[in-house]
């Protein structure tokens, strides 16, 4: 599952783990092996999906994300494998 979408906006491409709480991004792909990669897609981290970063845990990890109408926590170890592009947040961040 190593599709490359980062031809046009090279500058804003980064990892989901690098997005700051309060901002939004769009999934481009998941760089993970077979089963783990499939699981991320099952969870909804599909190309084109909008993900909002809600908050980090008090100790800095994991982080809480909102996507496809639900909320979910991921560890940095997993979210750094999700390639995203930054998007301007629709709502002003708190």
């Amino acid at each position: 599952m190593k599709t490359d979408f980062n031809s046009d906006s090279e500058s804003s491409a980064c990892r989901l783990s690098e997005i700051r709480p309060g901002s939004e991004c769009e999934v481009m792909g998941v760089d993970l092996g077979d089963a783990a990669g499939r699981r991320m897609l099952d969870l909804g981290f599909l190309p084109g999906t909008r993900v909002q970063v809600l908050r980090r845990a008090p100790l800095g990890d994991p982080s809480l994300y909102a996507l496809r109408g639900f909320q979910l926590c991921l560890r940095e170890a997993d979210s750094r494998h999700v390639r995203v592009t930054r998007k301007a947040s629709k709502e002003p961040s708190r």
Partner: protein
Amino acid sequence: MSESDFQTQRTAPLRLALIGSPNSGKTTVFNALTGLRARVGNYPGVTVERREGTLRLKSRTAKIIDLPGTYSLDPVSPDEAVVGQVLAGEIPDTPAPEAIVIVADACSLERSMLLVGQILNLGLPTCLVVTMIDELRARKGQLDLERLSAALGIPVTGVIGHRGIGLAALREQLASPETWSSPPVMPPTDQIERAAWADSILQHVVEKRPGTHTVTDWVDRIVLHPVWGVALFGFVMVTFFQLIFSWATPAMDLIDLGVSAASDLSRTLLPAGFLADFVADGLIAGVGSVVIFLPQIVLLFSLLYLLEDVGYMARAAFVVDRAMARVGLEGRAFVALLSSYACAVPGIMATRTVPSPRDRLVTILVAPLMTCSARLPVYTLLVAAFVPARDVFGPIGLQGLVMLALYLVAPLSATAVAAVLRKTVLQGEPMPFVLELPSYRIPGLRLWLSQIWGSAFAFLKRAGTIILLTSMLLWVLLTFPQTTPPSGLSPDEAASYALEHSAAGQAGKAIEPLIAPLGFDWKIGVGLLASLAAREVIVATLAQIYSASDPDASLRTAIRADIRPETGKPLFDPPTVAALLTFFVFALLCTSTLATMARETNSWRWPAFAFGYLLVLAWVAAWGVRQIFIALD
């Protein structure tokens, strides 16, 4: 078969399966349909809970199975494969379901649709139950369920699971899967296309997306706050610890009193002799050794399920996950390990809230390393008898420091063992760690009570019988064969003589070569065997062997004075005491823990493994510590 009544016996019960992602409300729907009467077991070979219940429908009965929550039908582990195997009828004694009931949360339908698409491709009669309609309304969302039904081509029913709203319509629906419509076209099988299919359907169905849950939003600002959140977490965990460490004590003392009153009573009622001994010391004491766990279990699960149902436990896991991840465990294992500091039995039972079976197993296997309160009397006896009461730094005494060290070794060794287990016995491809934070909810009293009752009952039924049997067996071994002591012995000396000549006494002598490298003689060997009933029993057993009239001062004096015949030096020299303390830090000398492990993992393989690895670890560590002390001498 035996439960189905006469009217319905003509037709075999309809077989239904409930499937849905975790927290979608499956179990709530299951309970509402079956009236909280579930048969809970395990699937063969894995530690995944199997819940099945019977439900009376209009014209027939149905057997309904509550499948473990799943995000997808593509399994990523043997534990997850269970769902697919049940649906395909590949599990012995679990015939394939005739119809599938998908459960989806109205507020996160977008996510559930991916699973719905996969299930429709199975081609079985399927209906969809949309739960949490009340929460959808509270969050100002709107769904058109009729349109959803039309678009999917299957029946759709909205329910509010915990209040039973919509359940009548659902029962009606479930009675006749033959009449359910099926989708005109199958959803795509490719993951990305399936997401597009889901989105295109939802465009017509979701009239208004639910907003954020206002209460949850506000409460989380405090509960997940970097400072307040950590403080609250600490407070809750201290409460857990207090609950089973001190607040359960009055009830446990009461049970102790009751047990000794009952055994005294039985002695006055029965003629003195074997039967009276058996009833008083074997049977009643055995029952007591089971019931004694109930206060801790009931208290622990009262708080655990309350906080789970409210929605706090997931937040606690979120707060502590980072620390636990270092150890190779996950946030939800924290409460279980903390509880094991009081007692591994409720601790191991508390691992039920750890969703990943593999993580749960690692947690179960390291839980016995935590310094449970049964070790305290052993530590106290040895430390008070052999560690000089000398001040080290100001008011801090050497005895206190040794106790502290014994307590601190536990988490350190558990950490190391967890890491090793992860890399050896329980290795596997690392899977993304997923945690959902459900909205805060007001818990239902009936469900809460049934959860507490369920865990107490499960303990009594499976673990309790084993504990009762082994404690009676140990009594037999410590009592038989009965010998007539030579005349002229005091009662204390006669008891000591009887014990030395009992089967356990002989066994203690038989294992002496194995424990001699640790400096232990047969008397310690008997104590170790007896401590299998519960660790603290070694104190009473040593008191009996040394003919000490009380297990406190006189036992301390007696063991200090014991001389090793070969060397003429004290038996309990510093290397031996250090080795014995170390042995107790590691060894799993507790049949109640083993029985609970067997019940929770549904096999004797894991308790046998835990007993074995901890025994080896205990022996090696005790030997090593002894050598260090000998070298220092």
